[in-house]
């Protein structure tokens, strides 16, 4: 009851503020932007629905209001990093704002690539929009803060990598009966790894018997692409209690003998288990990157699996792309013993909280104007429709918007889960190197996937390589 009242009050405040403040707001933007009218801002981002919405809808609105033009360069995932990093490293000033994926932000901060937004707004009070407040954001913004709590990026998308299952299959009484007869417990979303494996085995056999293109689970195991590294270290290993890629952040070591976890027994068990799931996964799994896993699930080829949250909404609701509309359930991924307790206590996490923000490189030549643009896209008033278009949520208040509530129903509670249990998930570890260690570790994961070496060998070699690379970068010497 109390919650409801807060909610109503909150809604009233938000909408009331929106109504009364609108006209005054428009004036404020025009006045604040007057010195920068005619400027063109350049940004780089991946061509995802949230970015496209920013480019196609928000940028024209912003231009109409302020006379500042915003050009967003859409690129592929690999290219986005290369160009942003080259630009910031060289200080060439091509981009006024860059997309910062959550996992790379610590590397950027360590290199001092980004403008301190908190400080910039203090230094330029005339540029601080009345409608913009860092406190409106969900806990996801904490990933973009430094030790002093200063913010370096305005979150623009956020998702959790979630466990998806097929409600039609899991809810079928005949299937339920057959499953219970075979395994001795009722069919439900997997809570443990053993259950996950049982369910995967069961549905793979079910698919064979009924001549269906159906397998037991998805596995994002592309054997030549970083996405397999990410699924293992950010979604699977944590559920076995191996956090932060198994790297000890005290002394920057990965091997067990140096105090790391990367080749610990738990990690080896996790990798062996994950690789063994391939026998219950569709044949394309060893070629599947993030989007292909979503496509596999959307094509109805898997009964359960881990899928990035940005895909949940379209898998559950877009009949133009998905064959399992209305048949998608979400749940917390299967966990080993003790992981949930650790996550609740804040010492562990159950999965990956993914997303990104826009930040301003120091080399930008239009920092002031870009500051306005970032505040514009961080206002409460633009959030709900953006959420509907890109299935991303970065403000606490957005969860209660009718548009989001409707989407929540379609996805069987993905947004509720994000809101209530999002804190159990965590972003990538705060490593000041990211791609570097990933690059030396992932070849061993690929070898384990194709069976060239065992899981234990892979992690032993990977941990040794990681130690060597971190030392070369100057960490943990």
């Amino acid at each position: 009851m109390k919650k409801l009242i807060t909610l109503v009050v909150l809604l009233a405040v938000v909408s009331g503020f929106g109504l009364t403040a609108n006209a005054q707001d428009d004036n404020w933007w025009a006045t604040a932007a007057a010195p920068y009218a005619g400027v063109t801002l350049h940004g780089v981002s991946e061509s995802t629905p949230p970015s496209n919405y920013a480019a196609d809808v928000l940028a024209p609105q912003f231009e109409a209001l302020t006379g500042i033009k915003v050009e967003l360069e859409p690129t592929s995932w690999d290219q986005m990093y290369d160009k942003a990093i080259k630009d910031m490293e060289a200080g060439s000033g091509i981009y006024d704002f860059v997309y910062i994926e959550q996992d790379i932000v610590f590397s950027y901060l360590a290199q001092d690539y980004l403008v301190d937004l908190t400080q910039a707004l203090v230094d330029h009070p005339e540029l601080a929009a009345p409608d913009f407040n860092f406190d409106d954001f969900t806990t996801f913004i904490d990933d973009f803060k430094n030790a002093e709590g200063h913010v370096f990026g305005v979150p623009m998308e956020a998702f959790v990598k979630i466990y998806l299952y097929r409600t039609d299959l899991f809810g079928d009484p005949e299937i339920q009966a057959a499953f219970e007869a075979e395994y001795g417990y009722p069919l439900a979303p997997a809570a443990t790894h053993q259950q996950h494996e049982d369910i995967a085995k069961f549905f793979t056999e079910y698919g064979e018997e009924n001549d269906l293109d159906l397998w037991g689970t998805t596995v994002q195991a592309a054997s030549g692409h970083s996405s397999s590294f990410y699924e293992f270290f950010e979604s699977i290993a944590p559920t076995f209690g191996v956090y932060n890629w198994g790297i000890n952040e005290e002394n920057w070591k990965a091997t067990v003998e140096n105090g790391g976890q990367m080749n610990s027994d738990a990690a080896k068990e996790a990798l062996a288990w994950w690789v063994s799931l391939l026998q219950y996964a569709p044949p394309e799994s060893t070629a599947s990157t993030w989007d292909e896993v979503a496509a596999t699930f959307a094509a109805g080829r898997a009964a359960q699996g881990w899928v990035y949250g940005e895909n949940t909404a379209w898998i559950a609701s877009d009949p133009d792309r998905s064959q399992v509309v209305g048949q998608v359930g979400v749940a917390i991924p299967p966990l080993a013993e003790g992981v949930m307790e650790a996550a609740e206590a804040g010492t562990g996490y159950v999965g990956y909280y993914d997303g990104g923000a826009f930040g301003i490189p120091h080399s930008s030549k239009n920092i002031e104007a870009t500051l306005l643009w970032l505040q514009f896209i961080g206002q409460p008033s633009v959030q709900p429709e953006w959420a509907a278009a890109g299935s991303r949520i970065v403000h606490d208040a957005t969860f209660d918007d009718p548009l989001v509530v409707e989407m929540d129903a379609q996805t069987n509670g993905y947004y509720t889960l994000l809101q209530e249990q999002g804190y159990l998930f965590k972003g990538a570890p705060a490593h000041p190197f990211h791609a570097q260690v990933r690059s030396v570790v992932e070849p061993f994961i690929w070898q384990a996937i194709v069976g060239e070496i065992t899981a234990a060998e892979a992690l032993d070699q990977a941990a040794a390589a990681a130690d060597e690379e971190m030392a070369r970068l100057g960490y943990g010497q």
Partner: protein
Amino acid sequence: MQQSKTARKVGKYATTYGVWVLASIITLLPIYWMIVISARSRVELFDRPNFIIQSFFEENYINTINDPSLQKYMVNSIVVATSNAVLVTALALLATYALSRWRLPGADNIFFWTITNRMAPPAVFLLPLFLLFTKTFRYGDWILFDTRIGLILLYCVFNLPFSIWVLQGMIDGIPIELDEAAMVDGAGTGMILRRIIIPLAAPGMAITAILSWIFAWNEYLFAATLTSVKARTITTGLAEFVTVTGTNWGEMAAVATLTLIPSLAFISFVQRYIVMGLTFGAVKE
């Protein structure tokens, strides 16, 4: 007698046609699959493989043709590839003419050095090129980065070596006596070039232009790094379809199919020059 001759002829054609039909099927199969994919909606994409196009999903084509940025990329590609082909052919003609007709000190080495420019693994050169394009070549607010002229000049790095290689053989093959005769008649270097070299080297120039055009049209890595929104080419635009939330294979295939059309039209016109030009001057009578 008469009959066996016809039979032999038929037999001979049969092998020829047999081989060619087979070769054509193999050649066209991936292209055809590209078109099949371009005709599928995103849901149908993961149906069981089927070589018969059941229904044509026009949206893939309509969406991409009407996309203003893709239109812009297409224009960029045409401008960049054509300008580069013309520039490269002209420069290569002058260069090879100089290398062929004058005894320059170290001519052989200059020639080989130009070729080595094509051999470099492209990835690492992007770093210095990025610096050159964004920091060195700037005049006020103008930078070479994200300009068509930047790409046109850059593509010389792999097209000039190739063109010089092809044209050198061609021009070496033109007897120097023709030049000398013209010189006796009082013709200057410009006149010799116009009247003798260009007409005789035309097939070679055509092939260099065509292949340079194709290489420039197809280039991805340089264009992806050194352009942003204004000068981006269509090949680079293809990579935009690969995203974290799903690769739009249908539209990507549609664009790939569309990009074939200009090259196909172009190549049909100039078919006959191709073969004449590719001898590298290596075989002489």
